[in-house]
Structure formats: C-alpha cells, structure tokens
C-alpha cells in the first residue's frame, strides 16, 4: 500500500497530474420555482501545484463548484475526479482541506484545540498533534496564540487560524471559499501576501473562490472566469506573472492587462438586463 502510494506520488509529479478534472459537469437544483442550473457544461483541469481562482458575480456557481469538488454537493451531470477519484472517495480519504467564508472555529475550543480537531478525528497521536499545531500556527504567523479562545482574536486572525486548521493534516489540496471576503482591504492585502508565501512553502494545490479581481489576479496561476444563469465558465486565463509577487506588482502593466481581461470576461458573461 505504501509503495503503491509512493508510486502514485511519483506518477503525479511526473505527469503533471490533474488534481481536479471536470468534464461537462452540471448541477441542477430542483426548487419550488422549477429547476435552477447552478452549473452547466463546466470543463476544467487543475494541475498539481496550481493556484486557481474562481471569479464571477454571485450566482455564477463558483462556490457550488468548490462544494462539488469537496463532495458537499453532488453533480447531476458530467464527470469529475479529485486526485483521480470520485469526490466522495477523495473526501473519505481526506484529500483536501476546506476553508469556509467564515472561520467556523468552535468557540469552546482554544485555537490550538481547534487546529487539533481534524487531527483528533483522523486519529493522529498526541505527539504528532502537538508538532503539527506548532508548525501550522507558525505557518500562519499565529505562534503564541494557541491558548487563546476564538473571541479573543480579530477576524483576520480567526481566518488565519481556520487556514492553519485546514493545513494541519496531510492534504495536498486546499479549497478556499472567499476566505477573506469579510475582511477589510488592508488586512486582506496582508493575508494575500502571506497566503502566497504559504503556498510557495507548502507546495499545495489551491482552489480559491473570490469576487475581487485584484485578489484573483494577484494570487493565481490560473483564473477561471464564470458567469451566472446557468453557472458556466466563460474564460480561463493562465497568468503570466512571475511566481515571486510583491504587492507592488499590482501596479505593473502586465498585472493590469490580466485584470482588464478578467473584467472583460466578467462583462461579457453578465447581462445587466435583469
């Protein structure tokens, strides 16, 4: 089993493995007012090590798509694999960490106990838990805050703690659903910068939902532009920005050109008649 896993890993590295692969994916919710097409005909490849942003107006299905990857929703059409498995099996083998819009920290647990939550559920030993709590707290710059309760931390710190919680166990895929949406611009810039560093250090594959154009362009290697009714992909932009990205890169013509293309994509997919 172990050697099989090692072979699998090598295979992934060698063949530029698709972590997420969607073919003609569709999801229709049956509601009282008739069917709602949350997703239709979505084709997408997320390669190992990618930072993929999903951007679009509300109702474009970007969060729904993330939830399908996480097996929190089931697709009603097409195919999707996560780490080469069905989303259900991927979830059951704990292949991803999920960061929600809200920190969703348990208020009766301290920060370190919150980070320990997935580790307890996945039966890590006490020694391993301790080591991982320290390491992930360090990764999100929260060292020394482990004994605090969530209410004692600011919103930005809470969201960082929830990222630490998603990083604590061995999942190569990080799914983030507008994690900084509720934070102010300054905190957000800071966290974006930290997130990029964290991504470089951990080499994870990240799927990131946002509705901020600068955030998407600044963070991503690939930007997926989506539009609503039905939720679909209208453009996929491969970023030409270097991997090393200081905040000032946002004033460069290259950055602005990509941002312009994203904006055009959003405009094309969105009808303002409604």
């Amino acid at each position: 089993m172990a050697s099989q896993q090692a072979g699998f890993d090598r295979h992934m590295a060698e063949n530029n493995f698709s972590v997420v692969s969607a073919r003609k994916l569709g999801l229709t919710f049956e509601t009282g007012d008739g069917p709602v097409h949350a997703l239709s005909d979505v084709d997408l490849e997320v390669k190992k090590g990618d930072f993929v942003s999903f951007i679009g107006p509300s109702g474009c299905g970007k969060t729904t798509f993330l939830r399908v990857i996480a097996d929190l929703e089931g697709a009603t059409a097409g195919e999707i694999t996560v780490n080469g498995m069905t989303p259900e099996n991927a979830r059951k083998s704990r292949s991803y960490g999920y960061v929600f819009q809200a920190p969703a920290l348990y208020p009766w647990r301290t920060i370190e106990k919150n980070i320990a939550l997935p580790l307890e559920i996945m039966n890590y030993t006490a020694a391993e838990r301790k080591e991982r709590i320290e390491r992930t707290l360090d990764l999100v710059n929260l060292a020394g805050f482990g004994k605090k309760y969530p209410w004692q931390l600011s919103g930005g710190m809470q969201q960082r703690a929830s990222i630490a919680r998603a990083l604590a166990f061995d999942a190569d895929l990080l799914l983030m659903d507008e994690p900084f949406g509720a934070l102010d611009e300054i905190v957000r810039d800071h966290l974006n910068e930290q997130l990029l560093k964290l991504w470089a250090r951990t080499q994870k594959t990240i799927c990131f939902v946002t509705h901020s154009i600068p955030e998407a362009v600044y963070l991503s290697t690939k930007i997926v532009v989506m539009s609503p009714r039905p939720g679909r992909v209208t453009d996929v932009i491969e970023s030409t920005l270097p991997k090393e990205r200081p905040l000032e890169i946002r004033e460069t013509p290259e950055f602005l050109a990509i941002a312009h293309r994203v904006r055009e994509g959003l405009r094309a997919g969105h009808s303002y008649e409604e």
Partner: protein
Amino acid sequence: MQREKLFQHRIMPVATIVIAIIAIWYVGAYFMNAPFQRDLDRRANVTSTSIEFFEKTMSQPKPTLPAPHQVASSVFENTFLRKVTSNRSLVYHAGVTLSSTAVGFTLGTLLGILIAVGIVHVKALDRSLMPWIIASQMVPILAVAPMVIVVLGAVNITGLLPKALISTYLSFFPVAVGMVKGLRSPELIQLDLMRTYHASIAQTFWKLRVPASVPFLFTSMKVAIAASLVGAIVGELPTGAVAGIGSKLLAGAYYSQTIDIWAALIAGSVLAALLVAIVALVGKLVERAMGAKPERRLG
C-alpha cells in the same frame, strides 16, 4: 462608584418591589381577617379602638391570611430554633422533599437527554415521539400523581421512588425539548466542516453537537429543577406522606394552620430559588471553563 451602581441598579429595584408586596400583604391581611375579628369582638362584647382592632387582626392564631411577620417568625422558628431531626423543623421537611427532587431531577435530566439524542439521530423517533411528549405534559399532574403512587404501591414500590418518578415526569420535558434544540444548534458550516473531515456520526456528536448543546442544557435544567420540586411536593400530597413540604402543606390544610401553610410555601419557594441558583451557577462555571466570553453588564 461600583458600589453605588450596584445599589442603584440591583438592590433598589428589588427592595422597592419587596416593600410594595409586603405593604399590599399587610393591607390584604387586615381586610381578610377583619370580618372574623369583628365577629369575635361582638361575641365577647368588647369594643376596641381601631388601633387595637388592627393589632388583633395581625395576631390571630389561625388567620384567614396571616400577616407577613407571623409567617416570618414561624419560618424563622421552625428553621433555626428547632433540631433538624424534629418533625416541626422546616429544614427536616425541606430535606425530605429535596431528596426526592434530586433523584427525580437526575432521572428526568438523563431521560430528557436520552430522548433528545434519539429524536436528533433517528428520523422515525423525530416524527413519532414529539407529539406524545407534548401530550404527556397536557395531563394535569395532580391527576397523574395518585395513579402513579397507587400503581407503584401495588407492586410494593413505596417511599422515595414514586415521588421521585413524578418529579421525573415533570422534569424530563424541558430537558428533552431544550436538548433537541441544543443538539441541532450547530450551524451548517460547522457540520460541513465535520463532513470534510469524513468524521463519523459519533465524532460529530461528541465533538460538535454535545459541546454546542451545553448552554441549552443548563437553561432547560433551570426549568427542570423547579418543575422537579413541584413534582416532589405534589407527589407528597396523595401519599399521605408523613414528611416533606407537601405533607406539611396538607397537614396545615387539615388543621387550618394557615401560618404553617404559608411557612411551608415560603420554605418551598426559598428551596426552589436556591436550586435554580445552584444550577445557574454550575452553568456559569461550565461555560467559563468552556471558554465563553465573560459577560459585561450594561449600565
């Protein structure tokens, strides 16, 4: 400064209400006792000044409505001046009632939690059990209590347990209802998080549903313990119990010892207040231990 605020915002309003109640009580006692006193005076052919007359209405041995100081002195005498083992000691009677209250409350809380866990986890129970639970509380407890005592007496279960079971009957309900709400209180996002970890139902239960339900548990236990005390007192009435606040009330009613009845009532309510306060305090301590944000009082 702090002291002044405590006085203004806590002690003053409470004291005002207490003084108002006592004043109304005295007026009530005068008017309730006056006709009987007038009767007595007429038969004994005495004429008294209005002040003398007022004093007499306040010191009848078996008044229609005893004056507050009569009740107070009876409570004081029977609480502090008697041996705890004495049959006249209110502490003794309160202790008897307290023991069945405690047993009934414990059983009721456990039963309530058990029912709530069942309702939350088994869909069939969710649909079938709740109407019956609600119906169970529609039955007047005064009608159920004698039947419970008689039926259990027929199978030779007497003493504390039948009384405790009546407490259980009253106290499981608030706990069951509160805990159903409590165990369902986790938000969707917290449940989704557990799902992303592929947590088992048991893990979700112990690590999420149970801690989330703790505040609900204590809130419903406050209601349940007061209900348990009422259950224990009601349970003492049809048993012809020789001890307990209920038996004290019954004996007082038999022999028209109105002062004793009122003293027993006061003892019962003081006991209830103490029990509720203890549950509230334990709840506070538990919440503090679970990292709850300390409350700041406004004003």
